[in-house]
């Protein structure tokens, strides 16, 4: 029987019930954030206050599930102390690692908390092994989360040329494949994940019923109009339909979710350390459904790689939850290269 080391499963927790759902359904680690702009899911009513944080960390760690704290926005001018406080708080709470993007914060944290395990956030936008090895040399980064821009072969090249653990996305809504460097939300609203912790913040979003269906506006800009029963996506500029040379279509990206089930054996073979599930903004129900599906797939892979096959029920469950009700392999498979 061929058994191999399988990647860890890292699941999102936007609330205490979501955290418990992830832990109960087989996550190896959960990631979470404070209720403020120090993390890139700073949405109204989401995330953890101190009390929930303490209870969540206790619940997870007591069940041998690690807790990673995302402090992955960029410290804003004059407020560096807020980000320092967030890191200090994470240390006091005893999280297993912090996920950082800001180079200044990485430097500061590595000096003030040499024992703290640092992960480089996807928002740090390190897409090559030179960038990752730099973060290791300068800040002692132990793991890097790769932006969703690389093919599987490119991910393998990165892994072969670094001793930093590599984490990749396994399931969830796709960005415009330019994480950490995207200006679209800032262009439309003046706010972005890197600055305020939210892409296309809700206060700029309006859904309007019209005879043609549902119109979506972002800061007044019409970005899409859905006919009744046509699948919808998140109200971001990258997933809008625009008129280009007389044709109106998803000019940048279709609303869709990444799903790596099909290439799970290759991901394990090339030595990926961890697979991340996107979706801290989603409900405990989503977290439970995705976690148990990927857990089942990873366990089957661990049992016998040669007999691994993607079960239709797994695919069906994940496709149902997907943005725009469709899934893709994204950049991992790019036959046109």
């Amino acid at each position, binding site marked *: 029987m061929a058994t191999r080391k399988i990647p860890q499963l890292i699941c999102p927790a*936007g*609330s*205490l*019930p*979501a955290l418990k759902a992830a832990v109960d359904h087989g996550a190896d680690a959960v990631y979470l954030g404070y209720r403020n702009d120090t993390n890139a899911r700073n*949405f*109204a*009513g*989401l995330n953890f*206050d101190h009390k*929930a944080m303490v209870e969540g960390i206790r619940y997870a760690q007591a069940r041998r599930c690690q807790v990673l704290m995302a402090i992955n926005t960029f410290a804003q001018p004059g407020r560096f102390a807020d980000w320092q406080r967030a890191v200090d708080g994470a240390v006091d709470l005893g999280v297993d690692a912090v996920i950082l993007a800001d180079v200044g914060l990485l430097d500061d944290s590595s000096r003030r908390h040499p024992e703290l395990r640092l992960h480089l956030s996807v928002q740090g936008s390190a897409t090559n092994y030179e960038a990752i090895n730099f973060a290791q040399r300068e800040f002692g980064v132990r793991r890097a989360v790769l932006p969703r821009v690389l093919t599987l072969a490119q991910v393998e090249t990165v892994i072969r040329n670094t001793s930093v653990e590599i984490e990749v996305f396994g399931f969830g809504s796709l960005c415009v494949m330019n994480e950490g460097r995207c200006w679209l939300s800032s262009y439309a609203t003046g706010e972005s994940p890197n600055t305020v912790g939210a892409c296309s*913040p*809700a*206060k700029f*979003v*309006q*859904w*309007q*019923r019209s005879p043609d269906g*549902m119109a979506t506006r972002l800061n007044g800009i019409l970005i899409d109009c*859905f006919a*009744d*029963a*046509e*699948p*919808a*996506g998140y*109200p971001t500029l990258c997933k809008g339909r625009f008129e280009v040379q007389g044709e109106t279509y998803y000019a940048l990206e279709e*609303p869709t979710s990444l799903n790596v089930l099909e290439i799970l054996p290759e991901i394990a073979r090339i030595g990926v350390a961890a697979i991340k599930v996107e979706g801290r*903004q*989603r*409900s*405990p*129900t*989503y977290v439970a*459904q995705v976690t*148990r*599906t990927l857990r*089942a797939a990873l366990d089957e892979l661990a049992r016998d790689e040669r007999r691994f096959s993607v079960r239709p*029920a797994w695919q069906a*469950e994940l496709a*149902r*939850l*997907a*943005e*725009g*009700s469709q899934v893709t392999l994204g950049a991992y498979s790019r036959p046109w290269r």
Partner: protein
Amino acid sequence: MSQDFTIPSFKLPGVLSTIGAHLPQWPHSLALATALNVAARVGLLPADSLAQLADRSFVIEVLDAGGVASFTYRDGLFRPLLTVPQAPDLCFQANLSAFLQLLARQEDPDTLFFKRELSIVGDTELGLLVKNMLDAIEWPPLPRLSPFQR
């Protein structure tokens, strides 16, 4: 992948929405406001989120049942609105089965939104706050209902 029970997706017959729309709507509003007050009183709803609901008007529209509930939150209490506001701050619209699936945590609200089975009209940020507030509730374990078990 077993769950103790599942609520199927269904749509009530069209005639019900016609009848339902002609029935008085205040009992729904009163029942919903009462339930929310109980939830708030036993500490299921976080105080900091509740404070942000003050003086806003909410409408819950069950499309296939023709039922509408409307309420506001003032001075620490959810209060039914006897007349449904024309332009509420926030309106959630869905069929009965979708609302039941949401309440039972069987479906994810974003999934229902992507599938166009749930719509949110009005102040989107307020909608997000309410959605996240409901997601963060730690419901006591449901009793095991044998008729629904598979």
